[in-house]
């Protein structure tokens, strides 16, 4: 049986196609004007990659910020459940998932079946999200994907004391004015974001078996800082951590529509 999952977030959209518990295709792209357009666009790409057509898909579930607006999906599931299930499917020893997306961050605790037990989420303030990193990278005039590698070379990371992304941007500018090294500022930025997420995670039970998902999991600086602050090691997932949400949606579609797992 062939199932699909589609995750339309605030900054990127992802689609995953699964056949008999194997990933056939997965695509990530930046969002279009509306959630509907993004979903169709990314699903077209994934279908093309798999060499399939919409009619070949037995079931498709959607998730993410724009999940209600997706025409080809039969059901929408919260991104919390999908991230839990997706990470669990990728590695069934996972019990705690830290997801840092473009517009929110969440820490999810799951049980031995991959179902959500508890979670905490910040979607009110941009601090501790991908959007914050984006704003600060821009202030520093470096590409978002360079922040991680750059910060690894830091010797004397700066410290950012503000919590608000815009105030942090101002602080970053101050360090730029003082001609501090880019790598030290980059490290300061990553550390500040990691600190915000860690302080959020204190309110859920942190069971061993950690995974990090979402776009920010690709930033090695944030990830290594979080490992240090939490005193844990994140398990390396076998699939791209950015598609976990869409993957989770596809797994739910498979579980609820098929007879084989």
């Amino acid at each position, binding site marked *: 049986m062939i199932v699909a999952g589609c995750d339309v977030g*605030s900054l990127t959209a992802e689609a995953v196609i699964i056949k008999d518990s194997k990933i056939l295709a997965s695509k990530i792209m930046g969002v279009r004007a*509306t959630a509907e357009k993004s979903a169709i666009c990314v699903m077209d790409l994934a279908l093309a990659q798999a060499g399939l057509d919409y009619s070949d898909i037995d079931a498709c579930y959607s998730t993410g910020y724009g999940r209600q607006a997706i025409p080809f999906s039969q059901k929408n599931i919260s991104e919390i459940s999908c991230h839990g299930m997706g990470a669990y499917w990728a590695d069934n020893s996972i019990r705690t998932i830290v997801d840092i997306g473009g517009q929110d961050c969440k820490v999810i605790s799951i049980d031995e079946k991959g179902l959500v037990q508890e979670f905490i989420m910040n979607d*009110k303030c*941009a601090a501790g999200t991908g959007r914050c990193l984006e704003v600060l990278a821009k202030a520093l005039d470096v590409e978002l994907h360079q922040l991680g590698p750059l910060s690894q070379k830091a010797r004397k990371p700066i410290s950012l004391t503000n919590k608000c992304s*815009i105030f942090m941007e101002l602080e970053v*500018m101050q360090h730029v004015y003082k001609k501090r090294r880019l790598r030290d500022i980059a490290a300061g930025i990553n550390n500040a974001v990691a600190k915000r997420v860690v302080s959020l995670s204190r309110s859920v039970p942190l069971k061993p078996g950690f995974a990090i998902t979402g776009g920010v999991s690709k930033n090695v600086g944030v990830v290594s800082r979080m490992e240090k602050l939490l005193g844990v090691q994140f398990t390396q997932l076998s699939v791209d951590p950015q598609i976990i949400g869409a993957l989770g949606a596809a797994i739910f579609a498979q579980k609820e529509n098929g007879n084989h797992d």
Partner: protein
Amino acid sequence: MISAGIDVGTRFVKACIVKDEALLGCAIEDVSRDIDRVIGRVYQKALDKAGISKRHVKRLVSTGYGAKLVKGKSFSMSCTHCVAKAAFVLDPEVRTVLDCGGLFITITSIDERGVFERTLSNDKCAAGSGKFLEMSAQAIEIPFSSISQYAERSKEPYLVSSNCAVFAESEVITQVNYGRENTDIIAGVLKSIAGRAATLFERIQAQDKVALAGGLATVTAFSSMFEQMTDRKTVSLPIPPQNLGAFGAGLMAQQGKPSRGGV
């Protein structure tokens, strides 16, 4: 005596050349990465406008977020003091100054002798700041100088749900994509910002007269919304509201370094 004041703010650098209590010339420019050069250029522009050469300036005082970056200054003063001083000199009946700048909203109350009483500011988060308005206007492609014109055409202001400036930016883009009028969006953003200022304002139990300072005060739709919300009239001062900090610094320079705080 001739003095100068330079206000290195979060978004703009301002300079004023002052003689006794009169403003001779002022200049303003965006901050940029090369801040030293910007400061030098703004200072020179203000000198040129005043027709004064640098060596005639007896004292230079800096203020604002980046006050320490100004070279050759006699001393620095906090921006709240400078803005309050400027407002009081321009209109001695002013008791409350609302300074709505790039990132900070500060409310300062002064007594009848112009002595600084207390101040209140948004210190945690940039919600409701000038940057909030700037980012939203940019996202829906309205030039900052035309914000008021657009907002006045709105019939049904859109209620912005995000408090975070960064999220408000994405929220307004989404609304544009759903086909909402940009006039309604910008009016909604202004309303949310004026609401923030009004809340701070109520907390200080402000006395009349009230003067507005800072970049947001140049947006007429903002000041009228603020007046409506707080049911107060604000006085209009004879110099551009954005320059009050630098002007105040120039006035402080006239007096020389104070032994202790106070206007």
